[in-house]
């Protein structure tokens, strides 16, 4: 029995220890937003967060998720700035890879609130978009970075504490 936290809820699975987390998330817990692409961690369609790191769930044995916090695209509840930016920039074409792209991009913005073009390319080249919506993925990440209130807070004495 493996127990982990899935989008804020504790869940338990009796699947084999070596079952890729992807199939447990999709078929046992019914969260279909995470996609199967290659099965060898080469395409990124299955990207989820485990303790806030982007992980390829198609190649992660269930046992490795034991006791961890797993977040999928559904866990963002449509509130993540990247999701808004993805709509604003009209990023998805077929859309199949986009959950993975968003999960991957989120870990970039977590660590780097203002990534450069090259930093975005380096981070996002781990994920394939077969429709090649890359220019828009890049644009949307920049847009989200602009909108994001995450990251470095600069103390501005002119703004009151409660504002």
């Amino acid at each position: 029995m493996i127990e982990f936290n899935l989008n804020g809820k504790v869940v338990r699975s009796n699947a084999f220890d070596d079952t890729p987390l992807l199939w447990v998330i999709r078929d046992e817990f019914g969260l279909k937003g995470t996609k199967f692409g290659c099965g060898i961690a080469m395409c990124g369609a299955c990207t989820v967060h485990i303790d806030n790191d982007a992980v390829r769930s198609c190649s992660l044995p269930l046992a490795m998720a034991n006791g961890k916090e797993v977040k999928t695209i559904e866990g963002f509840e449509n509130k993540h700035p990247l999701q808004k930016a993805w709509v604003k920039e009209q990023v998805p074409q077929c859309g199949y890879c986009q959950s993975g792209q968003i999960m991957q991009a989120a870990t970039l913005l977590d660590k780097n609130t203002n990534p450069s073009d090259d930093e975005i390319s380096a981070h996002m080249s781990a994920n394939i978009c077969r429709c090649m919506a890359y220019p828009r993925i890049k644009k949307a990440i920049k847009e989200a970075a602009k909108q994001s209130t995450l990251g470095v807070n600069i103390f501005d004495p002119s703004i009151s504490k409660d504002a």
Partner: protein
Amino acid sequence: MKLLNKSLLNNTSKGIDNDFEEAPQLSRRKFLIGAAKSSLIMAFAPLAMSLTASASQIISDRAFSPSVWFEIKNTGEITVHVARCEMGQHVGTALAQIVAEELGANWDDIRVEHASSDPKWGFVMTGGSWSVFQMYKPLSQAGAAGRLTLIDAGAKILGVSAHSCDVKDSKVISGNKSITFSEIINKGKFDRTFTPEEMAKLSIKSPDKRHTIGFDRLALDVPPKTNGKAVYGIDVELKGMVYARPVIPPTRYGSKVLGVDDSKAKNIKGYLGYEILKDQSNWIEGWVSVIADTYQSAIKAADVLKISYQAGSSANINEQDIIDEGIKLVNQKESGVLFVNDGDVDKAFKVAASSMSATYITHTAMHFQMEPLNATAEFKDGIWHVHCGNQSHSLTQPAVAKALGVKVEEVMIHQYYLGGGFGRRAYGDYAIPAALTAKQIGKPVKFIFTRVDDSKFDQARSASVQKVSGALNKNNELIGYQHYVSAGWPTLAMAPGFMPKALDGKGNFDPFSTSGSDHWYSIANNRVRTINNQVAQKAFNPGWLRSVGPGWISFGAESFIDEVANEINIDPIDLRLSLLDGKGKNKGHHPQSVNGAKRLKTVLEHCRKTANWGGKLSKNEGIGIATSFGQEREMPTWIACAAHVKVDPRSGEVKVKKITMTLDCGTVVHPDSARAQIEGSILWGVSLALFEGTEIKNSNYAATNFHNYTPLRMNDMPEMEINFIDSKEFPVGLGEPGVIAVAPAIANAIFNASGVRLRELPMKAEHVREQKAKA
């Protein structure tokens, strides 16, 4: 992937309904408007239908078989039903925009529904960059008929004359009076029929009055694709279903299972057994389906199954065998069949002061759409229900029926979002093993190909060989041109009814492996022969890959024209411009290719200005140009493309720095998704030119997954400048055309940067090094 040549339509053989061209089919239909329950329904219906019943009666009885329709609920919600699939083009949005434009609808009221299989839709294929081109007219007319009806009813309620009324934001407006569509539907009575003649006479808005076409709307399919809610074929779950995975046999054709040992699989928890599939159509032979209660168990069990086979007879074909056969074929004067034959080519070459020729090769290229093939199948209430994303119910439904040995109407295909199509989901043969497994075990089955299974069962773009020759007179004018193209033919394998008769009457040919050779350059003596490579045909199932024939044929044609320019020392743009005179057959015709080659000339001139052509470049850099007119000569999207590359003189590595593209596709219905299609297809072009490609090895594809098939990633993305010519002409296609000119533009740029002429796709650093060493 689509050809709209009228002669083609006339030549389609039995088995494929000639109705596949949507517009004429609809022109034989009448348009009904009537109320049913709380909705106003507007639909095309067959002419032959009841002559006595009223439109309203027919609609409320649901006695009709509409092929294009939309409805307005009394709440004001407008649903447009489209028989086109969504695979990234946002096609539902563009088609709904056309209806909304004429209807005068508020965009916020619009919804789109994608249809499941039903004969009422006629021949349905989402491909060929065809959707907007085909549906523009009928949807405009349908919207206009709706507008007229709403105006008449609204005017009556408002107590004004219909002539004083207009529509806007889902309201009928007359001076300072107005009434919403929803109020009209609640209060009015509707019973109206438009004859085909009346439909044809309806006035369509002039371009300057448009409020929806040509304006950006947020694509309706985007939000669910950002939060995990979009449902793809692979997300389908049916009650009581089990999972299955195939074991793909050693050869595409003729394999036979001799024995299966599943003793090891039996140790895997959840393994339920295997089935040797019995396909009554013999489309798949020697397939074993492995069944389990989870997909992971099916994957594991399939891996440990021991199957002995008798392989098909052509088990040992390699890429080089296909290429060798192609080279042989393009060098035989009479091989294949005649496609273009203008003037007297033999004479031109005989009297020529000089001539030149070159042979171009493209290697096997694969789909690798992100969503691996899958289908979920179930027999319920006498119907075989197949759930999967697919580009063509019309090709998939009969294929499944034939495999099952049932009637076509006993199969129902349910549509979902496609995790990429690119031509692989046009002939939905992946539904066959799903349906057969469901049949043989008597249970609903979710049948998923792993990525490796998907690759093995791909329908790759065949390797190709083409030879282009030119004859020049003493003034260095191109007086003769000859182009031989050869490849494995997808249409022969999957839709032979679409193969038209050749010009010489000596057989039929695959238009999707030929078009692109019928260029718009005015050369008096011009011949094209198209040749099936049967070695390729035997080894694997050739497929339609985004941009099909023009995607590889233009690599030859547009490289060659540059080679000629270089030979005679003329600027390659000047040479092209001199041949684009728009005379004779290159004049084009109304409506889709009006002004013909002159529009190609315009985009080329525009691209020349925007692409820094002739400007100063850094060392080892070059700009190359190419034009295209895809997706078909009968549906031309006029494109000029410039590639700016840098070639590392030592490693031979090619970096594409920038692509500049100018295009004229007539009226742009949805500018932002048009741009998105071009961005994606330019990158496809770069990817196919430099990063993709595999080889046939023992009649299988060498590439199996993303570790050995490597499409372009973000770090390889060049800068792009895309310019659309502002046009009010008839809209043509955009899904594929952007791919076509990219590879030859890069090849020409490599030549300009390094002096190395590459005649093989994909173009690799080692090719540059080899050529440099030879020079």
